């Protein structure tokens, strides 16, 4: 028996994954040997996320392919790694005071966030369907547990169970789709699938198309696109608020990155067949998200529907699949991270133990008692609604221009109309804050960490809105 030659291992391009995994394990083990005070875990996790973000710059001359074409470091993956590290760090910062207040003493909380980040980085850098599947599973399993981490709260349990059952079901669809793609093209590598389709090496055309449809179902569930969004409002409402914010940004960005990669790199040749399907999904996602949000009275549910609507806009970028749309995707997710963490930061500040103050009514008169908080909330909501000169406007503009370049005029018009509709419910919250009398006393402890997160988010939202050029240049560098 002749010895097997070792494959090429490129640890440098894997650096962020390695750093984050090592820190995740460190947090896990440290937690076993310390007492009740978990602040050291926060410190280790934040260090890990910082190092992870820095280590993603380890490779020059992008793109670099490694591990037999299963892994890639390119601008998309590096930029997304930054988004993931930023969003996980903000999630941890925002949880510190929240966890103290709500009595979440589980140290695994922080290691799960780190492992989830590992999964997200893998998702954004994977060019092999097996890797994409593993990434999605790591992210999903961490999120199932994080959603249910308040074990004595029935709402949290409901969220975890719903998310888990539906998520496992959706994973089945995703896996089935991948299997059919593999079966009809003979490879799990995205590039090889594309070349098999180009060169007519497809074993069975109908099975291939069925695989694509199943992929749309599976990925559509993970990003909460209509009609696979049913879980989102309940899970967003039941999960602890920092976890909700985390879920709405990082994992969603990661799934979208994988979504974009699969559709633009593996099956662009089939775009005549999936374009129309994704257009329909995108349009109904926007409509259901925005119209659903109008009817909500709970702020977390409102934001859940609004995040569904945002996925509708982002799917437009996937449909366009030109170089502009990938940078639009990156820029959008970065601004979205700031807007969401800012909004949820304020939602967290307004709650107190046992009473989270989640009804929109409870925001009445906030402007008189805490004008700065109300102003910040207004900035975030208007940015989510896409008003200039805030970051949300630039992001939307970017996505729409990518689609216009490919000639999707009607789709863009529908999206702009939806954007206008969405202003209605964002303004509703603002009206409550500025024009109604308070229904009850605000009892706010201004916890420094959460305020810090809000300050960063305001800076990001305004900076990216007024001076987006430098970041856009980074995103467009490919």
């Amino acid at each position, binding site marked *: *028996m*002749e*010895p097997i030659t*070792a494959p090429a291992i490129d640890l440098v391009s894997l650096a962020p994954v390695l750093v984050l*995994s090592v820190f995740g*394990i460190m947090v*896990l*083990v440290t937690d*076993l040997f310390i007492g009740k005070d978990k602040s050291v875990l926060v410190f280790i996790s934040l260090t890990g996320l910082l190092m992870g973000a820095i280590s993603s710059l380890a490779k020059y001359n992008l793109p670099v392919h490694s591990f037999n074409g299963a892994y890639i470091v390119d601008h998309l993956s590096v930029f997304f790694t930054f988004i993931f590290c930023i969003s996980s760090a903000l999630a941890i910062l925002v949880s510190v005071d929240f966890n103290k207040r709500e009595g979440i003493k589980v140290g695994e909380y922080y290691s799960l966030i780190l492992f989830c980040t590992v999964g997200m980085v893998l998702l954004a850098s994977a060019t092999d369907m097996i890797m994409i599947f593993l990434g999605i599973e790591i992210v999903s399993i961490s999120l199932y547990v994080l959603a249910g981490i308040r074990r004595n709260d029935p709402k949290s349990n409901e969220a975890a169970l719903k998310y888990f059952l539906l998520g496992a079901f959706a994973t089945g669809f995703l896996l089935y789709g991948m299997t059919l793609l593999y079966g009809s093209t003979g490879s799990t590598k995205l590039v090889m699938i594309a070349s098999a389709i180009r060169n007519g090496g497809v074993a069975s055309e109908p099975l291939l198309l069925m695989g694509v449809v199943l992929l749309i179902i599976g990925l559509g569930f993970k990003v909460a696109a209509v009609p696979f969004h049913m879980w989102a409002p309940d899970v967003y409402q039941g999960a602890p608020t920092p976890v909700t914010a985390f879920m709405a940004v990082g994992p969603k960005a990661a799934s979208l990155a994988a979504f974009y990669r699969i559709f633009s790199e593996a099956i662009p040749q089939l775009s005549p067949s999936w374009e129309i399907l994704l257009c329909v999904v995108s349009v109904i996602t926007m409509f259901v998200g925005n119209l659903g949000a109008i009817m909500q009275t709970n702020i977390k549910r409102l934001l859940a529907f609004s995040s569904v609507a945002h996925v509708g806009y982002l799917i437009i970028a996937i449909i366009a699949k030109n170089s502009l749309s990938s940078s639009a995707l990156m820029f959008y997710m970065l601004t979205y991270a700031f807007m969401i963490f800012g909004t949820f930061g304020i939602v967290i500040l307004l709650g107190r133990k046992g009473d989270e103050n989640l009804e929109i009514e409870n925001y009445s008169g906030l402007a008189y008692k805490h004008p700065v908080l109300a102003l910040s909330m207004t900035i975030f909501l208007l940015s989510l609604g896409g008003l200039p000169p805030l970051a949300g406007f630039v992001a939307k503009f970017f996505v729409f221009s990518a689609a216009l370049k490919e000639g999707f005029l009607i789709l863009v018009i529908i999206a702009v109309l939806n954007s206008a509709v969405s202003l209605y419910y964002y303004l509703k919250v603002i009206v409550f804050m500025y024009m109604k009398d308070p229904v009850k006393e605000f009892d706010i402890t201004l916890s420094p960490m959460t305020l810090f997160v809000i300050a960063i988010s305001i800076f990001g939202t305004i900076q990216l809105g007024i001076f987006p050029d430098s970041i856009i240049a980074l995103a467009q560098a490919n």
Partner: protein
Amino acid sequence: MLESYLGAGIMMLMAIGIAGGMVVMTSMLGPKREFADKMEPFECGESPIVSPHQRFSVKFYLVAVLFVLFDIEAVFFFPWAILFKQLGMFGFIEMLLFILILGVGLLYVWKRGGLDWE
């Protein structure tokens, strides 16, 4: 190609034949004297007819999940063990890393008391 399964097929048929044959033969050849008292199930101090569904403690669940996880881990060892010499140092380090990560998992479960039966 299928001829290679002939032996296995014959063996399976024989196994089924012997097992099934014994059951059939005992019920046919054995003496049977049935009367009411004998046929009644007997359990000392217990009601003889209860539902077989008993509620299990949630502790079993943790054990079962951990069993499945380590079972899956063990599956990766089969091909590794067969290829151990051919893979050389590289395969050894690779597996070491794999075990190390799962070793952390074991340490975690252990320290958290996942293996205790309080």
